């Protein structure tokens, strides 16, 4: 795509050499080298825990490296603080934005750039400057709109504008598409292209390989804190990419199994809640994986919450194995054999400050009782079996959940529900923010659950995942079921059309 910029500049825009950083017990980075040219997009790939975040935080002046050198335009810089990094021309867009919700886009962009606390703010000038920045990015956001009223994508644009306002020449994006809808992702690609045109060096981190294919000029892969290699996308197949990341070869990104689906177990009819969920009906058969697709905000998560009793449904029946369930709370749903793996692991799936074993045991305490008391040894024994079975990488049951990587957190959540031995398992975005290797293991587990005859519902925004794993696909649009397709010969476009309603006339293959 972009020509090699080295010929034009005597120095690389950014050069990091021999970078090392250790934390107690962890070697997060080990002799890592990185080069970035002006006007190129360098994709940084690696599993969670590979050292990407540490690398970025060093670049952002959050951590000081133990060893190594950082040069910008051939000059050694010392990034000792976030402000220092900003002054060096580095702008970092973290997954969690650093925006003040109650301030406007304009105020956020210029926050901290006032010459002194008492300096007069020229609103008109700032407004014009903000407009100009948005023009440069190619997206219009009202500079006076409060950040809390902006969509996630718009907030991201504000973050990028903020970086540009500080004259950033290096922009780092950490999983920028994680919370975006497919249309918004398209918008982001254009922004990245625009940054490239502005001769800005972009370091782009993502777990979604599609995005890497679309955007990257070069791909750098980290594993266990070490630099595994930097390649051109043309010379690197997807399987090679995964192999370099994971350190072993995965036969297939999606290990879907051909299976014969049994009789229907879980029947939902006319599920309603106000205007959010309207009259949704579907069935899930024994051993079937039902994919649920749809745009963000279409009502997929809301539907799952109704099935789990997290919200009260205003209408509809839920039947499991021929018996109608009266579910009014998660506690009842769990007792009836339904479990939900929430999309928000940190906020809803785990008690982050507690140990992984306590998290694991929470819905299963009655399995570990010895009279009125909890038997710690039974609890430990049960948890140990899952550590091995689903390969949770932890130092022990006493590790605090907060300190685990996303993939391992998800595995702890999984373990807790596996122990529960539920009949219906609802996965809401099961692999969001999880690295390729752990993703693959979670898919294998889904297959295993399917073999056990569970009814599985998998909500996902990643269409490749939906198409890669589901037997049938339920598409939700604006709170209603837009269609239910058998997953045979369907393309992503078919799903998108159904999800957006762009092709309302198309005949859909309905399945009872």
């Amino acid at each position: 795509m972009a020509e090699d910029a080295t010929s034009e500049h005597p120095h690389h825009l950014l050069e990091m050499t021999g970078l090392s950083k250790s934390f107690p017990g962890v070697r997060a980075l080990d002799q890592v080298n990185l080069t970035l040219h002006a006007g190129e997009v360098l994709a940084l790939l690696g599993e969670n825990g590979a050292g990407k975040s540490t690398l970025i935080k060093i670049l952002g002046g959050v951590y000081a490296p133990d060893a190594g050198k950082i040069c910008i335009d051939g000059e050694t810089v010392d990034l000792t603080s976030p402000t220092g990094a900003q002054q060096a021309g580095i702008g970092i867009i973290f997954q969690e934005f650093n925006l003040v919700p109650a301030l406007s886009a304009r105020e956020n962009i210029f926050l901290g750039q006032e010459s002194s606390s008492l300096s007069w703010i020229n609103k008109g000038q700032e407004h014009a400057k903000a407009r100009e920045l948005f023009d440069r990015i190619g997206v219009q956001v009202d500079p006076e709109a409060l950040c809390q009223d902006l969509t996630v994508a718009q907030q991201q644009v504000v973050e990028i504008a903020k970086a540009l306002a500080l004259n950033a020449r290096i922009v780092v994006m950490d999983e920028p598409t994680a919370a975006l809808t497919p249309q918004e992702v398209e918008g982001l690609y254009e922004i990245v292209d625009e940054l490239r045109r502005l001769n800005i060096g972009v370091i782009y981190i993502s777990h979604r390989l599609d995005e890497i294919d679309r955007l990257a000029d070069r791909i750098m892969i980290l594993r266990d804190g070490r630099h595994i290699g930097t390649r051109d996308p043309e010379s690197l197949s997807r399987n090679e990419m995964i192999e370099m990341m994971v350190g072993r070869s995965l036969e297939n990104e999606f290990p879907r199994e051909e299976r014969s689906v049994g009789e229907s177990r879980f029947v939902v009819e006319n599920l309603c809640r106000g205007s959010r969920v309207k009259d949704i009906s579907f069935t899930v058969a024994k051993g079937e994986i039902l994919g649920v697709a749809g745009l963000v905000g279409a009502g997929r998560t809301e539907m799952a919450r109704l099935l789990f009793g997290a919200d009260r449904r205003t209408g509809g029946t839920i039947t499991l194995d021929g018996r109608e369930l009266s579910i009014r709370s998660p506690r009842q749903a769990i007792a009836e054999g339904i479990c939900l793996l929430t999309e928000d692991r940190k906020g809803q799936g785990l008690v982050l400050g507690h140990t992984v074993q306590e998290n694991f045991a929470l819905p299963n305490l009655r399995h570990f009782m010895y009279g009125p008391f909890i038997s710690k040894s039974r609890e430990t024994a049960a948890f140990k079996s899952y550590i091995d079975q689903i390969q949770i990488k932890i130092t022990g049951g006493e590790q605090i959940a907060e300190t685990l990587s996303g993939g391992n957190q998800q595995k702890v959540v999984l373990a807790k529900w596996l122990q529960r031995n539920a009949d219906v398992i609802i996965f809401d975005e099961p692999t969001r923010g999880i690295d390729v290797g752990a993703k693959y293991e979670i898919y294998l587990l889904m297959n295993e659950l399917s073999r056990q005859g569970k009814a599985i519902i998998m909500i996902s925004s990643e269409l490749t995942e939906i198409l890669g794993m589901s037997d049938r696909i339920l598409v939700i649009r604006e709170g209603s079921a837009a269609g239910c397709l058998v997953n045979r010969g369907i393309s992503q476009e078919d799903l998108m059309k159904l999800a957006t309603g762009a092709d309302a006339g198309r005949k859909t293959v309905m399945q009872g």
Partner: protein
Amino acid sequence: MKSNKYMRALFRDYGMVFVLLALCGLVSIATIADHHPSDVAAGRQLANQLSSQAGTEINVLIVAREVPSTDEAFALALKEQLQSNGANVLGVELGDPRSVRARLEDLGRQKIRVDYIATHNFSSNWGVLHTDKLKALGTTFPTLKKVRKVRPKSHRWPIFLTASNLRKVLDQNAPTAIVAIGMTLVIITAGIDLSVGSMVALASVITAITIRDLFGGASASGMDVTLAYGLTMLVCAGVGMLVGVFVTVFKVPPFVVTLGLMMVARGAAYFIADEASAIPLSSVAGNKLLYDSNLLGIQNQIPIMILLFVMAHVLMNHTAYGRYVYAVGGNVTSARLSGVPVVFVVISVYTICSLLSGFAGILETSHHQAGLMSAGNLLELKAIAAVVVGGTSLMGGEGKIFGTFIGVLILGVIENGLNTAGAHLGLEGVQKMGLEQVIYGALILVAVLIDQLKKKVVKPAAN
């Protein structure tokens, strides 16, 4: 690496134990003073000491004050031990300087030889027993010429570290400690209960009123009193449940609910009592029993408090209920989605907290033999302070019952230390109270600071 981990865990979970020990050391040093033993043991010891020094061929007169329990026991023990050692006890004079003088003159007139006057520190300082006075007597009466006085050896020892003082620390803080148990549960669920002090007062008044007006007044039997206690606990349980309902069903912040209740309960205590100061119950024997019967030889509320701590510890660490309480405080959404009965848990912790406050109120009523509407004044602050100092996070989700016990003791030792050492340091009453508050406040700030710091230390950098 490993030992480092344990050290860290020790510091994290039990760091406050070291603070308590350091504090005890400090207070001990500040309260070192001369001790003049005058109990049964001192009497025996003095007898043996005398026998081994002077042999058995001695005539001894024992002198002490006319105080039935202490001096008499001392004198009796002294006498019995001397006699069994073979010495001749001329008599035991329990009285005052005048009677001692008369007794000595009497002995002198009868020409009975007196070798030793055995006494304790207090009486040995009577003018009549001064050496020159004894000499003067010796010139008048020859048989008294060689008389010498002996008393138990004095020694230096911290007033703080005496059994009676340590018992006092526990006894005085038992009601606070019992309330602090409930407060710990509430704070672990990320709540707060400001009403505990007022509930103590309300419970005290209700107990007194029901005994006086419903259960036979002065002639109330043990059964009547028990019924009155039960009724009080019932009312407290109801109030606690109501708080829980406000917090869960109506989603009112616990701070606000309990702030309101704090005023309502205190006001209600005064209103119901309709008395100027207190509702006296001194004539009700059954009510005294709870505090006074001292089944284990110490004030009943000490073993009751310890029992409650043990029960709470087991509840919080070894039962599903305890796990649920921690989970609700750690992340209420996640707890709910894991099937934890959140509403039940929250209502129950406020009920338990209110019940324990009510129980503390009953103990106070029994102790002071009156219904006190001023009971538990500012107790909520002391209880919260104890919980926080004990390492429970106000953010919820973490905390230890044992830590709260240590927290209560730390506050108690400071109070006791200022009382016992206050005189040494020349502190006046108001100054002492002021200093106590300053130290309490500083301690809370330090505890919260430590909480923040250890979070930084213990949490490894997330990658």
